[in-house]
């Protein structure tokens, strides 16, 4: 492996890891804010408990997103300096705006929310949470704009071989971004709701096997309480039941939204990056059938080695063009077109090191794109059906006592995470060999090969050092985070509300301790 390969592994590992935290932040944040809004409006205890518990889970996860996010920004300059030089005029702007206009809001107001309990007036305290949540949603927009520019460069002219922004509006309304953004938000909501359903399922199951809740002859719930276990009261039932039902309904809505936005995105991608979509299908020849199972040696990336066993005629045409008989271009057809437009070999530039003059392979790694595309869609669909199933099974007010069903519910938390990760791996690996994919209808010459993007002055050893260091640190912290999430989940609402366990302060004590409250750390 040379510096380029190591740098790519590093970017892949750190980004995929970062994107475990991000969709949970994006998806859970609005739900917590809605719970707190409902508490503010109705004053009902279960909404408060839901806000506190899910808020705690949100924060345990949020910090990991913050910590790993800094790596993302620094990495462009550190490992991809030639990329940064090439795109800086356009790409730096959304990154800087993300920090200045979105991340500042998110971090500052979240600090106010964490420490503002009982200190800020209730309405204001709700407001700061909404501000933080909106900040995170805004931040996603800027990042998607930056990424979409790499997928589909717009709003630029070419000056001295480098793209120069000449239309910021075009960059920020890039149609690639406008379809990717809702897709990412819907996918994030799927992540947040799966967590709601899985954890709530566990607690409702726990309440049943512990004998707190039971069911009557018709299977309808009889809610009980166990006063000796802190927090196991009737309100606790409402907390989990409402979390589960809301989670399931929003999961279904999110699933539908993911499908619709994904379809729009795919249609656009067939025009913008036909090779990505052809390789997603392992489609060698032109045609209109969608592959259900393609076997052979996908790894060889050669069309002679793959055979499609099962396919649905016309479906690919439908996905790409909305009808059943327009052919979609296959890999074999596209390669010569790419070669003619963008060359057959990398430039003979000494800055490319050993890769100078190498032949360019325009076909992305087919096993990754083919299976990544299917994993994304497959996990997404299963996850949505999980939401429907959870909604149906709990229609009489609680969950069955079956342990395997509970385990399945908890395991299903992973599904939308995996769908998200698969989607990103597909879309980023499918863009190869480009780091900035050419815009087929845009300006000639605005594209960049990944091989030309890596920092020329940085050695493979250095990048290996950071890859190993960051991977070890990330691995250790993943264990810590999952351990904490499990601990807090098992402890239920009292984990986030010490007041349910320790004695309740009297109003006088409260007054005396006025300055004390809400020390979170």
């Amino acid at each position, binding site marked *: 492996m040379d510096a380029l390969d190591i740098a790519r592994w590093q970017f892949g590992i750190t980004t995929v890891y970062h994107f475990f935290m991000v969709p949970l932040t994006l998806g859970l944040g609005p739900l917590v804010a809605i719970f707190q809004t409902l508490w503010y409006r109705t004053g009902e205890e279960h909404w408060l408990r839901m806000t506190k518990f899910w808020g705690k889970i949100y924060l*345990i996860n949020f*910090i*990991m997103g*913050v*910590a790993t*996010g*800094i*790596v993302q920004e*620094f990495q462009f*300059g*550190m490992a991809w*300096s*030639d990329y*940064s*030089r090439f795109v*800086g005029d356009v*790409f*730096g702007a959304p*990154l*800087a*705006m*993300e*920090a*200045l206009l979105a*991340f*500042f*809001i998110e971090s*500052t107001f979240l*600090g*106010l929310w964490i*420490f*503002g309990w009982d*200190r800020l007036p209730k309405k204001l305290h709700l407001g700061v949470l909404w501000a933080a949540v909106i900040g995170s949603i805004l931040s996603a927009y800027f990042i998607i704009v930056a990424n979409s520019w790499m997928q589909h460069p717009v709003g630029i002219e070419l000056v001295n071989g480098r793209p120069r*922004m000449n239309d*910021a509006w075009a960059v920020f309304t890039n149609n690639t971004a406008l379809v990717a953004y809702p897709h990412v938000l819907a996918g994030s909501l799927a992540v947040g709701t799966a967590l709601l359903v899985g954890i709530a399922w566990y607690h409702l199951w*726990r309440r049943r096997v*512990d*004998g707190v809740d039971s069911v009557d002859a018709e299977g309808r719930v009889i809610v009980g309480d166990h006063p000796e*276990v802190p*927090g196991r009261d009737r309100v606790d039932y409402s907390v989990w039941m409402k979390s589960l039902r809301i989670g399931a309904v929003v999961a279904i809505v999110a699933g539908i939204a993911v499908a619709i936005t994904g379809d729009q995105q795919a249609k656009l991608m067939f025009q913008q990056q036909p090779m990505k979509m052809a390789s997603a299908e392992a489609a060698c020849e032109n045609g209109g059938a969608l592959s259900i199972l393609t076997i052979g040696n996908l790894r060889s990336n050669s069309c002679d080695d793959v055979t499609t066993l099962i396919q649905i005629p016309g479906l690919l045409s439908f996905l790409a063009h909305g009808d059943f008989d327009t052919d979609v271009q296959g890999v074999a057809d596209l390669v010569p077109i790419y070669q003619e437009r963008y060359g057959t070999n990398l430039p003979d530039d000494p*800055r490319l090191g050993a890769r100078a003059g190498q032949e360019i392979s325009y076909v992305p790694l087919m096993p990754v794109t083919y299976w990544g595309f299917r994993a994304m869609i497959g996990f997404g669909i299963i996850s949505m059906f999980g939401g429907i199933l959870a909604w149906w099974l709990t229609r009489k007010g609680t969950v069955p006592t079956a342990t395997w069903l509970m385990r399945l519910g908890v395991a299903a938390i992973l599904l939308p995470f995996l769908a998200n990760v698969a989607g990103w791996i597909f879309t980023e690996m499918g863009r190869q060999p480009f780091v900035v994919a050419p815009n087929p209808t845009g300006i000639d010459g605005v594209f960049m090969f990944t091989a030309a993007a890596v*920092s*020329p*002055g*940085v*050695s493979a050893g250095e*990048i290996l050092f950071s890859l190993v*260091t*960051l991977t070890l*640190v990330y691995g250790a*912290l993943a264990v810590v985070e999952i351990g904490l999430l499990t*601990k*807090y989940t*098992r402890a239920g609402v009292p*984990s986030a509300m010490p007041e349910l*366990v320790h004695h309740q302060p009297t109003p006088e004590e409260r007054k005396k301790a006025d*300055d004390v409250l809400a*020390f*979170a*750390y």
Partner: protein
Amino acid sequence: MSLPMLWFILIAVLWTGYLFLEGFDLGVGMLMKLLARDEKERRVLLNTIGPVWDGNEVWLLTAGGATFAAFPLWYAALFSALYVPLTLVLVGLIFRAVSIEYRGKVASERWTNAWTWAMALGSFLAAFGIGAGLALTTTGLPLDEHGDRVGSWHTFLNVYAVIGGLAVVGFCLVHGAAFVMMKTDGEIRRRARDFAVRLMPVLLLPIVAWVLIVQVDNGKWWTWLPILGAVAAVAFAWISLKAGEEKRGFLGLAVFIVLGVAAIFASVYPTVLPSTLNGAWDLTAQNASSSPYTLKVMTFVAAFGVPLVLAYQGWTYWVFRKRISTANIPDAHTIVAQVGDGRYADGAAD
């Protein structure tokens, strides 16, 4: 004023904001090992920065992002040349951030102790690395005509890097102690004052050395003015802290860092990153900048964004303006699985 010059000033402002704000919370992070004597004191220190540290850290991200947007060649050359030290800065920042949030999440001595170390060492590593990087962008790195580093990973290791690293570490410690004096009460407040008054002259030596080195090498006659101002401010800060006038002392340190950074940036202008190999390969505000169009767009964004950030961050400090002391820190909360046999009730008492 040209756009690159305006953006050069803005980058300087962002770094000043970063050093001023995260300066004290990096300092408090290190002081958790140096100043606090028991768990409650450590928690007092952590809670002084608890509501604000994350917002402070965004100044770093903004400084980085703005450099990328406004001076991509500077950003690319500096970050890639400092590959290994920046990796360590990242590790420091990661451990620090996670430590703040996770430290109190499990009530066991081993757990909190490990995270206190992560906080102190992470803060040190971040402060030192950022200081070294900032010093090197003023004194130069071995760059070729493309802005790529010549030589191996450790070419950054020189006396300037060490001075810069110590400069920021020293400033953070003093600034952190002054912040603790201002935000706490009781024994810890007194100890912070002793620390600041006794060690300030030593801890601020490296930063003064850095300012003087830059001034002697590149300064203009008028950049002596902010230096004189900074010296006056630091003397004022020391006298005030000694007299127990914490707010005035903190203000003095604020003026000191503003004028100190101003002196450094003004001295080196227009060079943003000199090449130690050939003066013709220096990166300057003009040859490293983005196009006028991009700078114009970013100017509108900054004109809107920076005052807004200052307003709501200022409000945050106002909300959390009260002093805290060990008496305010509630007992640790033990987290126990909520199962039917009532184990929770047993484990809950601390």
